């Protein structure tokens, strides 16, 4: 083991939040070491399959199912793994975890430069005070230490840099932001918007707010979206926000960034005398050498569960139950949105209409229940994401027929489908928690995580209501319901895993304060999804980014004042 130079800050993880921490801290003049456990995937040149046609892929873009079953038994259920992007997902065989008892959890991950920012769904939604005050109002979880006014300027800040296209709707439950021009609703989505507004005046269908540029940011090397909708292969146009396209070049431009890939933070070293993190032990996953790096600040951005895992295994005399865990809640109150297909339907009357181009976002119907009028039987709410499209050739899998008629039919577009996926808020509950497996280790020799998780009765009730309301909207518009579910997919399926090191007002019941700073250790910040004290029912990444930028600003100012 060797000991290396001092940095102002070490950022663990290079995904959505790690990139933001690196950008924010380097732009404030701090010398930053950015650690990434996986390999380097350089912008553009690293996107090996980006331009390849299906017939140029060994398995036509579908992948080698036998290999996928062996190496990606969990990741393949993300719904996003293809042959084009297969190498971006973790090998479940090498990176296993445990789900004890009846727990079900699909832990979807990407261990490489950029993390999941390379394959994410790009949906960006502000949270509102309906969300930040939810815990205080109904008593589930502990109160958030912030409200909308605290984070609103940081939403502005990150939205402008990220580049988010969206339509302003003036909804208090889904506040408008600093948007680029919205992408267009297709003809059936526009029809559904009008029908829903007519039959359900309190409901709104709007275009997804997505981190895809509709106006280029050419000075940052980013072109407008080309409407390919193959984002997860990596985008050489830089049209969607990722670490590679956006935050990393910004951080590198300062000259203050050192990036180490294949470098896994294995342990944080706590100095009892100063009550500070004094070093980060880093395993080079190729040479197997461990090096200790030192810094004044440490930002954990390793992804919610990995940040928690790192804290849990960084035990010391002062923190025998996990670093910064005097509260005893580290690892507890983990969440993921309860999701399922709320409705799949056919919308008649538009079969002479089509579209050109592949818009890289769907639509959203923001929460409309339990806002100002309480619902009977459940708390919190749900929202939908989905869209309308014409069924493609793959309908041939389930369609009777052979011969010319069959072949000719599949050459044209099929019925207009309208699909809504329900996303229900997940209550923060102590029994949903992460621990370290006492015996089993991963390929690097570190304890595997045990993920204890189930959905509560409230999530089931929300999805039941979501299914019923989705069917009502489709039926009111003259659509034919094909299918709907109120059974949640296994936890993790929404890929919105969060919590485990929650923010809170009280050091006795939370890990982090209102600036994502550990109550127990002043130079430790956790700004990824681990910090979340509740889950809301909209996508969390924008909030992670805003919290990270806000925390970095705070940390740098505290450091400058000599308070850290």
């Amino acid at each position, binding site marked *: 083991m060797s000991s290396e130079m001092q940095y102002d800050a070490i950022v663990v993880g290079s995904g959505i939040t790690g990139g933001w921490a690196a950008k924010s801290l380097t732009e404030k003049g701090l010398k930053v070491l950015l650690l990434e456990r996986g390999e380097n995937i350089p912008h553009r040149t690293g996107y090996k399959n980006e*331009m390849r*046609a*299906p*017939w140029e892929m060994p*398995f*036509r873009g*579908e992948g*080698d*199912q*036998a*290999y996928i*079953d062996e190496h990606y038994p969990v990741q393949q259920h993300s719904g996003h793994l293809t042959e084009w992007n297969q190498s971006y997902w973790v090998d479940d065989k090498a990176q296993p975890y445990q789900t004890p008892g009846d727990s079900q959890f699909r832990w979807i991950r990407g261990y490489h430069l950029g993390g999941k920012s390379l394959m994410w769904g790009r949906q960006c939604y502000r949270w509102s005070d309906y969300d930040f005050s939810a815990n205080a109002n109904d008593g589930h979880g502990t109160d958030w230490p912030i409200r909308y006014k605290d984070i609103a300027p940081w939403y502005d800040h990150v939205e402008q840099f990220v580049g988010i296209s969206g339509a302003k709707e003036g909804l208090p439950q889904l506040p408008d932001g600093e948007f680029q021009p919205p*992408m*267009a*609703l*297709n*003809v059936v*989505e*526009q029809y559904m918007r009008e029908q829903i507004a007519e039959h359900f005046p309190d409901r709104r269908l709007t275009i997804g707010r997505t981190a895809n540029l509709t106006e280029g940011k050419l000075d940052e090397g980013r072109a407008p979206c*080309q*409407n*390919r*909708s*193959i984002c997860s292969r990596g985008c050489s146009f830089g049209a969607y926000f990722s670490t590679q396209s956006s935050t990393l070049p910004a951080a590198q431009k300062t000259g203050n960034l050192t990036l180490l890939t294949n470098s896994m933070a294995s342990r944080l070293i706590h100095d009892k005398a100063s009550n500070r993190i004094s070093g980060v032990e880093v395993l080079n996953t190729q040479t197997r050498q461990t090096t200790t790096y030192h810094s004044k600040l440490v930002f954990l951005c390793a992804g919610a569960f990995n940040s928690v895992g790192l804290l849990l295994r960084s035990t010391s005399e002062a923190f025998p139950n996990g670093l910064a865990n005097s509260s005893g809640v580290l690892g507890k109150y983990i969440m993921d949105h309860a999701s399922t297909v709320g409705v799949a339907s056919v919308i008649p009357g538009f*079969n*002479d*209409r*089509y*579209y*050109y*181009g*592949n*818009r890289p976002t*769907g639509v959203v119907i923001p929460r409309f229940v339990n806002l100002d009028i309480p619902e009977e039987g459940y708390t919190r709410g749900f929202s939908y994401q989905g*869209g309308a*499209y*014409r*069924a*493609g*050739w*793959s*309908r*041939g*899998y*389930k*369609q*009777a027929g*052979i*011969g*010319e008629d*069959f*072949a*000719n039919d*599949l*050459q*044209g*577009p*099929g019925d207009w*489908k309208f*699909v809504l996926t329900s996303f229900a808020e997940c209550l923060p509950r102590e029994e949903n928690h992460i621990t370290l497996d006492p015996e089993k280790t991963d390929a690097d020799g570190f304890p595997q995580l045990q993920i204890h998780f189930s959905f509560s009765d409230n999530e089931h009730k929300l999805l039941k209501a979501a299914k019923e309301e989705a069917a009502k909207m489709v039926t009111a518009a003259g659509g034919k319901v094909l299918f709907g579910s109120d059974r949640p997919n296994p936890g993790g399926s929404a890929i919105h895993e969060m919590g485990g090191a929650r923010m809170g007002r009280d050091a006795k019941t939370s890990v982090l304060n209102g600036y994502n700073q550990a109550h127990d250790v002043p130079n430790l910040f956790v700004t990824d999804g681990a910090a979340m004290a509740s889950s809301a029912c909209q996508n969390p990444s924008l909030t992670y980014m805003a919290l990270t930028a806000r925390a970095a600003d705070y940390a740098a100012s505290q450091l400058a004042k000599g308070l850290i």
Partner: protein
Amino acid sequence: MNTIDNTQRRTWLKQAMAACGLALTPAAVWAALDKSSLTDKSFFTLICDLVIPDTSVPGAAKAKVPDFITLAAAHGMKGAKAEQISGFEVLLNEHTGNVFVSLNEQEQKTALTALDAAAFSHPRGVPMPEVLAAWKALKALIVVGYFTSEIGASQALRYVLVPGRFNPDVPLSDNPKAFSTDWTGVKYA
């Protein structure tokens, strides 16, 4: 039109059976044949031609879907099992009570259409006979193999990797072909 000459093959079979002094019954034909030849490409070429024949564009056989089927089945694509696909010809013959390759083209179409209809109308929750399950698996491989081939994706359909714009409302009459690059439409069909 079939790519291989079924009439020729049927005639050859009849002659072969006669030479052996056997009546042309399925069991007899089956017993007399070299089994390995039944899972070769020519059978799949025949089936591909029946499922997706040449239309205004080349069909599945010309798109080399038979080659793809072998690879795809060996790797379990679309839930197919290699032995299920390689054994389909036997199952088909048993099911129809004929030697499929010895039928004329119209008879083959009729037999396969009936099998297909049985497979796609099979009631949910009722165990599916092996021949129907194998047929659905094979048909899925033909469909995916064809529409992801260069011919299928870029001639039968429109392949536009970089549209450059999104037009939300276009009359279909302008060009009735679907886009193979409408990834959403393909993924959630």
